[in-house]
């Protein structure tokens, strides 16, 4: 479904990615793990067109999407939940979700997807009319995922969904990621520092260090790989 070949990204004189290649097939959950600054987020940003790639090719469903504008990439069915404060703080929960369906014109379908999002994250329904800036960190993360789902993506990229969130909500969010993948048949590319959880729910994983893919394998093999265990799983 998604194929990345020899992708290089530069921020000024500094190379953040030194030609990484990866592949995600239909229906999979694939994770990128690695330490801070390894280039995981940069890879997602390059795929969704938020940063320009200097070299390399990205194809999605067989079509080249390298360096398209981000709204054109969203149109093709790729949604990106960026890292950090990623909601529209001055808009209500409902308006945030509506903006996720910005490129859709089918109002009935939009209402249906919104019902699905509310069913997946009941907490959001309770807060429907609330201004999003007043939500807790975990609720904001649910909202960001919900907003991405509103665009009816075929392919969903999640950047650090567990960052700065209460542990109990982290568990819920990971369960929902699996549910979205299974029930909605949405392919997922997950960037996560919490390698334990990421390898638990994913089918395959790529280990990235200083802008290079150093290892890729089935997640269950990565979990027992001595190199991964000592570097990312705490021994």
């Amino acid at each position, binding site marked *: 479904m998604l194929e990345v070949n020899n992708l290089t990204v530069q921020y000024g004189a500094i190379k953040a990615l030194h030609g990484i290649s990866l592949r995600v097939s239909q229906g999979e959950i694939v994770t990128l793990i690695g330490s801070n600054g390894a280039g995981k987020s940069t890879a997602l940003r390059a795929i969704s067109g938020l940063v320009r790639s200097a070299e390399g090719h990205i194809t999605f469903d067989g079509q080249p999407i390298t360096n398209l504008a*981000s*709204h054109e990439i*969203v149109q093709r069915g790729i949604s990106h939940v960026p890292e950090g404060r990623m*909601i529209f703080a001055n*808009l*209500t929960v409902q308006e945030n979700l509506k903006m*996720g369906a910005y*490129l859709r014109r089918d109002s009935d379908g939009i209402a249906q997807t919104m019902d699905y999002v509310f069913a997946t994250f009941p907490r959001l329904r309770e807060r429907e009319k609330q201004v999003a800036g007043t939500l807790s960190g975990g609720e904001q993360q649910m909202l960001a995922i919900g907003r991405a789902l509103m665009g009816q993506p075929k392919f969903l990229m999640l950047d650090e969904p567990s960052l700065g969130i209460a542990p109990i909500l982290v568990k819920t969010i990971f369960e929902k990621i699996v549910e979205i993948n299974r029930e909605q048949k949405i392919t997922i590319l997950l960037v996560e520092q919490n390698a334990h959880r990421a390898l638990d729910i994913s089918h395959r994983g790529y280990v990235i260090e200083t802008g290079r893919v150093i290892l890729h394998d089935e997640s269950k093999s990565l979990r027992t790989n001595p190199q991964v265990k000592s570097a990312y799983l705490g021994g």
Partner: protein
Amino acid sequence: MHTNAKRWLMAALIASFVASYFSARFDQYYLGLAIDVGINVMLAVSLNLINGHTGQFSLGHAGFMAVGGFAAAKLTLLTSDAYFPLGLLLGGAVAALAGLIVGIPSLRLRGDYLAIVTLGFGEIIRVILQNSEFFGAATGLTGIPKLTTLCWTWGSAAIVVYVICSLVNSTYGLGFLCVHDDEVAAAASGINPVRYKVTAFVVGAFFAGVAGALYAHHKRVLQPDSFNFIKSIDIVVMVILGGMGRTTGVIIAAILLTLLPEFLRGFADYRMIIYSLMIIALMILRPQGLFHWTRKNAPNQ
């Protein structure tokens, strides 16, 4: 909300028409002041789209106003009074074109850097006008027919408020707030931030141009010097004081800040000191703006 806004627009249009009907009996000083208020409301509300809703920082609003004013005044001077309505549209259109030209650097710049570019733009406009014989060089344009009435001004102000309110409250217009809140998240949702930022500049500049055209036919004299960056700052202060992105607050602030310096005239030399102190005090006590309140509900509920 939408029908409500339409009702408000009709009420405001009728009120300005009625007020205009009786305006012959008004004291000329107060009538002039009422027109100043209308023009400043237009300027502040249109700048609020750029600086408030979309979260950019433009210091070039006086430049857009000047472009509109000079274009419209030249048209009525060269032709006849009958072309005044056309002059208003021409002023708006020329200013919108200027807005497009300034809007383009806004794709790459933000915050302080954008402010400096727009500030430079305003100054370039002023210097070009000052050196152009066609626009009367440093003396500017004089003998402009007095065509701006209370009805034209308040009517236009009502339309500006209506158009901008409907724009930002529409589903399309929520995009302005999204770009303001988080540009990356907006882009990731399929919103094109570039388009919104340029649209804000073009629409904001259009209305500033119309305000400039009204101003020209109100004061009857246009000097490039009166559109210096102090004028831009005045408008920015109205927006900040009113509460960025809050149309009602910005309207009230524009009215207050137009009337206040006039009422402080009795204090002669001290009036600017008092005025400045009041603004400093407000910024310390109410940094979110005088009339900032949070949006409670979704606009269409």
